[in-house]
């Protein structure tokens, strides 16, 4: 197993590197498909009153007059050395812009993940304890409901009720702890749906397994059965799910941050898209891919160590399919 595992680890790391490189190129190409360049089109706004000659000189400053492959090569060789380039709009180094807002998004994403996990485990636990006829059906409908409500509606609702009606937090102090909590709820609810679905499905699966009956036949009560037997095998796939929803947390942050007035990666995406600030957008997408790939790499490498049954690379596909289908 050990040599096998080492081989597997090396192969996965190499795959991850290839994916990151391809993701960078893919994003660059997609973004550059855009006809014309964003700087020119903004400068042409008549209110600015620029002459064509002035525009040409400004565009040359940003290097936008060069062919795409040349721009890609330059941007990529800088990216490899950790230089993310300079924003077309703010004129600031992109790494500084991202660095400034990153902590806020990390806090939000981590809180949202915590909310999602607490919610998921609470609901899953509820389905074990509530009577089948009444409470359970409602609980089981939760993930589906969570996935059906647009996250911007959740956000608007939370703000309306908790900030304006009840005055629990100040919207202008978006980084405050309660404001962060509610933003995390808005962001975490759809994520929790994914975790809950997998968790409930696994709990049901495990509880239906023969070993659960056998354990009960050894006189184990419901709680000890849950804690000692069902919890671990059911929660292990959650590791993989968490790795998969990292992307969802980043994507959802675009809307959540906009609604809650937070300044983070999400609102930076929103700004750089509306202003076509390509270097910023490129850097964020590339970094998101790096984060996603690294987190998943980590999950894949750790999983076989947590679950004695699993051969490297096996469960991942199963859980992925489950998540995809949920």
């Amino acid at each position: 197993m050990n040599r096998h595992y080492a081989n597997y680890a090396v192969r996965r790391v190499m795959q991850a590197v290839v994916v990151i490189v391809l993701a960078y190129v893919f994003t660059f190409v997609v973004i550059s498909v855009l006809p014309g360049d964003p700087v020119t089109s903004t400068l042409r706004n008549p209110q600015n009153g620029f002459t064509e000659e002035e525009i040409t000189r400004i565009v040359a400053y940003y290097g936008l007059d060069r062919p795409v492959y040349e721009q890609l090569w330059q941007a990529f060789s800088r990216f490899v050395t950790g230089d993310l380039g300079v924003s077309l709009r703010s004129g600031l180094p992109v790494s500084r812009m991202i660095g400034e807002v990153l902590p806020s998004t990390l806090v939000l994403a981590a809180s949202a993940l915590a909310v999602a996990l607490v919610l998921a485990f609470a609901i899953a636990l509820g389905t074990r304890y509530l009577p089948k006829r009444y409470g359970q059906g409602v609980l089981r409908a939760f993930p589906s409901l969570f996935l059906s409500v647009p996250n911007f509606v959740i956000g608007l609702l939370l703000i309306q009720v908790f900030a304006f009606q009840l005055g629990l937090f100040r919207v202008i102090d978006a980084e405050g702890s309660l404001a962060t909590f509610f933003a995390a709820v808005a962001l975490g609810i759809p994520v929790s749906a994914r975790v809950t679905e997998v968790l409930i499905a696994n709990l049901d699966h495990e509880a239906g397994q023969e070993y659960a009956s056998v354990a009960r036949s050894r006189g184990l009560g419901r709680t000890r059965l849950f804690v000692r037997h069902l919890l671990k095998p059911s929660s292990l796939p959650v590791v993989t799910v968490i790795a998969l929803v990292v992307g969802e947390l980043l994507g959802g942050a675009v809307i959540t941050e906009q609604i809650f007035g937070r300044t983070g990666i999400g609102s930076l995406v929103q700004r750089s898209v509306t202003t076509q600030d390509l270097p910023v957008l490129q850097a964020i997408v590339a970094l998101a891919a790096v984060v996603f790939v690294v987190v998943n790499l980590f999950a894949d490498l750790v999983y076989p160590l947590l679950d004695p049954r699993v051969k490297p690379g096996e469960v991942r596909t199963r859980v992925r399919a489950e998540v995809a289908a949920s």
Partner: protein
Amino acid sequence: MAPQDRLTLDRAEPQAAPVREPGSLLRAADLSVSYGHHQVVSGVGFGLSHGESLALIGESGSGKSTIARAVLRLGTGRASGRVEFEGQDILSLPERRFRPLRGRRIGFVPQDPGSSLNAVRTIGSQAQEAAALTGERGTAQRKELVLQTFAQVGLDDPRRVYDSYPHQLSGGMLQRVLIGLTVLPRPALIVADEPTSALDVTIQKRILDLLSELRRDLGISLLLITHDLAIAAEHADSLVVLKDGVVQDAGPTTAVFSAPESDYTRRLHADVPALNPDRYRHLRTRRGGEPKIEVSGVTKVFTVEGKPLTAVDDVSFTVAAGTTHALVGESGSGKTTIVRLLLGLEEPGTGGITVAGEEVTGRSHASLRSIRRHLQLVYQNPFTSLDPTWKVERLVREPLDRFGVGTRQERTDRVRAALESVGLEENLLSRRPAALSGGQRQRVAIARSLVLRPDIIVLDEPTSALDVSVQAGIVEVLVSLQAELGLTYVFVSHDLALVRQLADTVSVLRRGRIVESGTVQSVFDSPQQTYTRTLVDSIPQGFA
């Protein structure tokens, strides 16, 4: 898990003192269990005394496992009636008071040892749970108890077992672990739900013997759930025969076995291969014709995780036209690989295979097609061998379409004829496999293999996924078709009793090698090898 303890029963019954009479330990009366509106057990009653054993016999859907679970209150169905254990009606006990009985007084041995232990915890940590039922507090002492018990149930290296994860042990070892954990707290009763049906034949016998031994030595009563009449007769003092949740026959083993009251029991008796070695003799016309299949010196080596694994090692046998040759072996004996080699699905490393005079090895897909017209395969599991999206008519017609046989009308006629020959009604033509029973599906699979009118059919454990009575029907069809069409069969099976019923010649396989071969008569009556003898001995004899 939903609570199943909301049972409303007469609880005014006095707490009778245990007496030594039939049913003094466990007595069920008018027991019914239903899932939703579907009643699966109706008014069943039986009794079991201290130190005795009782077998509940039935095919799938007979409700036997449901009853076992009702006794342990592990099932999800609603039970009504009465189940007295040591004089106490356990159906009406609140869960809180019943739970102490589980494990301590009533033990449970499950069907599939592979899935009956938590895969992410070590055997030892789960064994601790069982040891705790003895009241022993110290972990070290409990471990000592566990290790002793493991030794007692015949596990060679208790310490290694203790530290292992379930997937690191074989099925037989796991079943020993489970039995050990069950007897550890010295319960009064063990409920064993088909404890051996997932195991190889030789191990089956050893496990059953172990159970009987423990019962004798420790004075534990046994409630044995099984579909195998022969096994039941061998290991139980009394029998209850169930069909569709209703008792068909009950009483001491000798009585039920030798003079069954119900038709069902009689039919069941007749369908068990072990008890009727000569059932199909009248249908079998032995014609030692030309050799249809010749396998000579075939070896196949696979590479698994970088290591070579010899699946088939220098195997040779011939099958005469119109006869049945059986390949017998336990799991891992290489019998499936031989089938795949025969069909050209694998290339042998060395050796040659000739089918109907044509060399199979080293041929292209296209030229193999012509051989396959003569050579058809019936798979083990009819639940996976039929495309679930296709209808019966199209499933059976597929070989005709692929080989472009006849006109459309001719094909339709041949499909109908094939279905008729396997005893299926025409109205099934437009059904999909999901709407068929297991036996019907296997008949469809056989019809599909017949429709091209091949000379040879390879039958890869064609009945192992089916009930005995269904199996009997299928075997009947196979045998009469052979008589009618002069087919040659290669019959792969782990069930020696079945082989004895329908094969002419046999090769006994072990770890890829043929250990013994010859006519069925000679191999079964006077086995030369120890292994063959063990196999033959493991055929249940009914009650001895």
